[in-house]
C-alpha cells in the first residue's frame, strides 16, 4: 500500500471533518462533500473519488449511527429493514443505468426530490 504523506493526512482530516459534520447534520453519507473535494483539491479522478468516499462512508455512518444511538434516536429495526433490501436495489439500479435514458431519469428524479422537499416542510 502506498505511503500516506503528512500533508495528505491533513487534507483527509479536513475533508473528513467537513463530511462528518454534514453527515451528522443531515443523516446522509457525506459523499456530496467528499467527492468534489477529493477531485478538485487532491486531484483524484472521479471514479477513485467515488470509490474511496464509499470506504469513508462506512466509518462515518457507523460512527454517526452509534452516536445517534446514545441519544436514543436510532430505530435499529427500521434501519435494517430499509438498508438490507437496498443492496438488491443498488445492484438493479446499476444494471438499469446502462439501459435507460439518463437525462430523462435525472429530470424525473429532480421532480421527485422537489416534491419530497415540499412534503417534508408541509408535514
Amino acid at each position: 500500500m502506498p505511503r500516506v504523506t503528512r500533508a495528505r493526512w491533513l487534507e483527509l482530516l479536513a475533508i473528513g471533518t467537513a463530511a462528518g459534520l454534514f453527515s451528522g447534520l443531515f443523516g446522509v453519507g457525506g459523499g456530496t462533500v467528499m467527492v468534489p473535494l477529493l477531485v478538485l483539491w487532491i486531484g483524484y479522478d472521479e471514479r477513485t473519488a467515488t470509490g474511496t468516499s464509499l470506504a469513508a462512508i462506512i466509518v462515518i455512518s457507523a460512527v454517526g449511527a452509534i452516536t445517534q444511538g446514545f441519544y436514543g434516536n436510532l430505530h435499529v429495526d427500521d434501519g435494517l429493514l430499509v438498508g438490507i433490501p437496498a443492496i438488491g436495489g443498488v445492484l438493479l439500479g446499476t444494471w438499469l443505468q446502462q439501459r435507460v435514458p439518463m437525462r430523462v431519469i435525472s429530470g424525473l428524479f429532480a421532480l421527485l426530490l422537489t416534491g419530497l422537499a415540499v412534503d417534508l416542510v408541509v408535514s
Partner: protein
Amino acid sequence: MTVEAALIGVAAGVVSGLLGVGGGILFVPALVLVLGLSQVDGEATSLLAILPVAFVGTWRQQRYGNVRLTEGLAMGALAAAGTVGGVALVNVLPAHTVKLAFAALLLVTAFQMVRRAVAPEAAAARGEDRS
C-alpha cells in the same frame, strides 16, 4: 410496515445505483414520510441503513480498482470528531430547523440533477456525478 420498509429500501437502492446519489438523501424522507419517524430519528436511522449499501459499494468498487482503501478508511476515522459534532448539533437544533435544512438539501440535489440532465459531461467533470 415491514413490507413498506423493504420496498422503500429497494426503491431507494435502485435510484441510488441508477443515479449515483447516496442512499441517505432518499432514506431520510422515506423514513419520515412513509414510516412516520421524526426528522431527527429518520436521519439517525438513515445512517444505519446506509451501512450495508456502503459496504457492498466499497467491495464492488474495490474490484474495479477504484478504492484507495487506506485513505478512505483513514478519512472516515479522521471524520469522527466532525461526525459526532454534527450529530450533537442536530440534537440541539429545533426540529423545524432540521427539517427545513434537509428540505434545502433536497432542493440543492434536485438542482444538481437538472444541471446533469442538461449537460451530463460538464457535471461529471466537476466531480458531481456521484454523491
